């Protein structure tokens, strides 16, 4: 479910006084944001310069109009001034056009730059980073938050700057023309300021409540749709509807109140503006009839009075947007601050001609420091051994694999491959050394051929086919409309779980790595297919060190070594026959699974 929708710019959707996310460290974040703009600063500078010029024309034109009105009033020729005004407007057009045109490319390029650097960093992060976060959340970092940053820098900044220029410029011109009228205009600003404070204090609470209720409502929708078959099976439609209706009503009530309160801001501001307009009209009228100011001054002032208050109204809004964006930027910086996978040691060893000797030496590991999954595990595996790892769920089987591939690093002890600590090798070589088939079958939205040769370039079709055949995937691939060129949807939804798994096995076959790791690789494949795969695996693992993790004990009987992991320790190890003879936990598990009474 994607929330990102590109919207043509519009400022109507956002309710004033809506909830605002506050940044944690505004100054520090802004400083680091500034660093991110490297390479785009020239463009930004130009944009800021243009905004300054644009405010110049905004400040000058009402003044010009006032002069012209005066001339008309006095019946004098004003063509020259009109010419100046025309030139001013033309200049204004050109400035606006070039500013926006420039902003389009500078803004987008900056986003692109930040987004790519973010991804570049993200891909180097260790797996623990990804495991600890929801994908949706990370995606919104890559899209929404990055977009928001650019809004901060290019939009809000220039807007804020324009407003500050405008306010200052207009204020100076107004004071020069008439300090009294300026004071009147300031009165409105003060009123609006107070009003905004009162309203937002009220709405902040309401919007927070609204957000909570909306969360509840969305949760209910999501739940009832993802659990649709259960709702139907247990005849719970009416119940669900009643629950939903309750939340819906509660939400509606709070949302209405929030909207009414926040909706007061605009019209009331408008009223204050109007009253101010009237005040200026009256005061300036009296002053003009006394001859203190000219008619043209009235004209200029009336135009200014509108232009002067608007920025004050909007500044609060823009500042809120700004805060939200800075908060988003902080989330991005957080990711950029995450430590990447440890770099190779300077004296890292290349890994060539792997024998496949693996040794666990007092290995302890936990995903959280307070809960060890593996506890002081030691194990010697000779090159070419087919190792099966079994044990109850959560015993640490998958963890073993995570450590071997250095998805995670051990907390204590070490793992040796061919006599050297895994951490002594180049990461690149190490990962090449392992061919893996993981629990989750990750397929990509590309052709089957590309999926099988994933991570490798220039692989001949015949090699792909050979790998598919070895994995027993060839026959179903050929039945697909476009065979090996069939483009899968993301995740390969059109294939059955078993077929997906066959493809990932083919992928591992193609990798031809000296050490194979199969994590629950056959758990979702039906037993007949599994039989084929088992044969393929036997062939594949021949002469190679391999680790097979399986629920079904029938699949691993012919392993050289079976390791039973229980509560983070190695409980039993030996060949199938040996373990059956021991008549311990393994033997019991086996008998139960085979339908034999223990």
């Amino acid at each position: 479910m994607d929330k990102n929708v590109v919207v043509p710019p519009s400022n109507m959707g956002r309710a004033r006084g809506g909830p605002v996310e506050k940044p944690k460290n505004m100054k520090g974040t802004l400083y680091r944001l500034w660093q991110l703009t490297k390479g785009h600063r020239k463009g930004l500078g130009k944009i800021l310069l243009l905004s300054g010029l644009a405010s110049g024309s905004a400040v000058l034109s009402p003044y010009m109009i006032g002069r012209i009105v005066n001339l008309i009033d006095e019946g004098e020729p004003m063509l020259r001034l009109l010419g100046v005004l025309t030139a001013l407007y033309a200049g204004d057009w050109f400035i606006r056009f070039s500013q926006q045109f420039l902003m389009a490319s500078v803004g987008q390029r900056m986003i692109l730059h930040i987004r790519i650097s973010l991804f570049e960093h993200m891909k180097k992060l260790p797996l623990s980073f990804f495991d600890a976060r929801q994908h949706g959340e990370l995606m919104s970092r890559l899209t929404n938050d990055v977009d928001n940053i650019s809004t901060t820098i290019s939009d809000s900044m220039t807007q804020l700057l324009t407003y500050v220029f405008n306010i200052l410029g207009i204020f100076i011109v107004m004071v020069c023309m008439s300090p009294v009228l300026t004071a009147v205009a300031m009165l409105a600003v003060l009123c609006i300021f107070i009003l905004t404070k009162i309203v937002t204090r009220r709405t902040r609470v309401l919007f927070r409540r609204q957000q909570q209720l909306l969360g509840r409502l969305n949760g209910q929708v999501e739940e009832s749709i993802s659990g649709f078959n259960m709702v139907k099976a247990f005849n719970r439609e009416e119940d669900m509807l009643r629950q939903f209706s309750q939340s819906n009503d509660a939400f509606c009530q709070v949302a209405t109140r929030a909207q009414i309160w926040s909706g007061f801001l605009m019209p009331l501001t408008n009223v204050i503006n109007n009253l101010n307009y009237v005040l200026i009209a009256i005061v300036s009228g009296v002053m003009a009839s006394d001859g203190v100011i000219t008619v043209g001054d009235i004209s200029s002032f009336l135009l200014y009075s509108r232009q002067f208050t608007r920025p004050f109204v909007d500044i609060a809004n823009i500042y809120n947007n700004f805060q939200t964006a800075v908060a988003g930027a902080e989330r991005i910086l957080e990711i950029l601050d995450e430590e990447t996978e440890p770099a190779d040691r300077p004296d890292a060893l290349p890994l060539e001609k792997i024998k496949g000797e693996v040794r666990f030496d007092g290995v302890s590991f936990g995903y959280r420091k307070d809960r060890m999954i593996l506890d002081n595990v030691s194990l010697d595996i000779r090159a070419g051994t087919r190792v099966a790892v079994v044990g109850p769920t959560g015993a640490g089987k998958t963890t073993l694999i995570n450590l071997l591939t250095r998805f995670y690093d051990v907390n204590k002890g070490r793992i040796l491959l061919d006599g050297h600590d895994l951490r002594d090798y180049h990461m690149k070589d190490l990962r090449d050394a392992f061919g893996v088939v993981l629990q989750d079958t990750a397929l990509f939205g590309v052709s089957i051929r590309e999926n099988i040769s994933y991570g490798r370039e220039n692989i001949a079709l015949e090699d792909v086919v050979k790998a598919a055949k070895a994995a027993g995937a060839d026959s179903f691939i050929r039945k697909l409309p476009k065979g090996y060129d069939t483009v899968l949807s993301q995740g390969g939804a059109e294939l059955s779980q078993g077929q997906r798994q066959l493809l990932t096995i083919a992928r591992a076959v193609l990798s031809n790595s000296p050490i194979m790791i199969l994590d629950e690789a056959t758990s979702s494949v039906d037993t007949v297919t599994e039989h084929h795969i088992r044969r393929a695996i036997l062939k594949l693992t021949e002469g190679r060190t391999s680790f097979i993790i399986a629920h079904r004990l029938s699949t691993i009987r012919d392993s050289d070594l079976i390791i039973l992991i229980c509560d983070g320790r190695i409980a039993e190890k030996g060949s199938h026959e040996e373990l059956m003879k021991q008549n311990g936990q393994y033997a019991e598990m086996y008998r139960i699974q085979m339908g034999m009474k223990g």
Partner: protein
Amino acid sequence: MKLMLRYIKRHTGMFFTAILFLTVETFADLLQPTFMSFIVDRGVKDQAPAAIYKYGLIMIGIALTGAFCAVMRNIYASRTSQQISREIRYDLYAKVQSLSFENIDRLNPPAIITRITNDVTQIQNFVNGIMRIMMKAPITCVGAVILIILQTPALFPLMLVILCVAGILIGCNMKFGYPRFGRMQRKLDKLNATSREFLSAVRVVKAFRAEEQEQQKFETASGEFAEAGIASMRVLAVFAPLINLTVNLGIVIMLFVSSHQPPDEIGKLMASVNYMTQVLFALGMVSNILNSAVRAVASSERVEEILQEEPAQRVEGSPETNRKKDYEIHGDIVFDNVSFAYANASRPAIERLSFHAGEGATVGIIGTTGSGKSTLVNLVPRFYDAPEGRVLIDGRDVTRIPVKALRDSIAVVPQKALLFTGTIAENLRWGDENASEKEIKEAAALACADSFIDTFAEGYDTVLGQGGVNLSGGQKQRLSIARAMLRKPKILILDDSTSALDAATEAKVLQGIRQAAQHMTVLLVSQRISTVMNADVILCMEDGVARGFGTHEELLGDCEPYRAIYASQIGEESSDRMKGGVEHG
């Protein structure tokens, strides 16, 4: 659009009251410059302070009237739009609840969720906007132009030209802008897809060291998105300033024309200039309105698609069964030559399937992945209806049994255990709303769920997060089984529902079910021989076709696929060993 009209119609009174207040409010704004011109022309020019105060007071009165209307309009507009969104949301949700699986599959669950949440909000914003600024902009625009013309009729052609040029510019803006924004949306979708793919496959990416490859994909996708963004922003950069320029030039021309006017009407000229700035403001609004209208229309189309969806199933029973208040089901199931294919599937999921499960029998269903096991059990509670052949319960076609009664007597334990927000007890009570605490505990014990529930501090009152996120897969499966057993159904469907349990627990759970389900017809789907081999009768499926139906021994004798599964799981050579194992044990 039609959708919004339909809902607005339900609140016509409120809606038009809001519009009325909005109109008065707008006119209050519009009248200010006119009275200001009176102050200048009749007060300042004639040196009459009394006139200045008189018109000043009138202006204050108008401003206050405007304020009152604005406040009322805000209240009405907020109420109406929130009511409308509440109703649409409710109708959508109720509609979705009434749909069948076929509909849900077709509409795609994530899309449905987005529609109920985001799209409805989008519509609400728009409807509220209509009553706020959207009507205000055109009224301001037209009103200001009329007032200018009323004051200075000579300006009529000028105003006409300005409006036409502005109209054309706005039109061009849309014509060139929208396709580009559409492209931008598609590129964003692609960018999202690329990053989602990376995130969900990150283990594989790392294992196969394909980081560079992924980086390139990402760079391409974000590069294209940026290009599309630049293209659409540039359209705005061209047209928005041009609209500004048009109105500004209008002011210049207006001033030029006015130089020939009598000077005693200088107030009028000032008012006209003021109106022009209001027109400019309103025109700026018009572009915004059109933009959000496009979004709202898109949203309402998506919402409408669901509202107009025809439920794929007739859910009522036949007239005669409906008349019976409590339709009773005994649990005798017959599949009579049933074929079924999922929408968009090239092959039928099951083909000409016939078998009989007598009342109280346990039927094991085994077969390869994709052999049609789950599909076949889905037809019993009518999650789907078979277009060919009949599914009979107690001799009656299921489509002629009231769905509520049918589902009340069936309990399903799906492959993927689904739990809901609420306490454990509440979740279990789905099976039986009036279940006593004791019954709940018994059901939990039967499913071997009591042991882990007891370790929770809150026990049965432990609140589960959405979808039961705080539980492990095995725990969820056990709760799901307990929930089904609590229902004391006539028909129990176990669809590979012990897959996440370890072998020892599975055996224990199955044993418990076997005892409790003596009077139930049980459809037991599994991939493991050991799970089904004790069933009264076993149905062996392959590619949607029944390849064998009989007891374990019978199938071992004459069913080739069954033997293959048996061999692969237990193996010829080990069957001897198995016997040995039994003897030893």
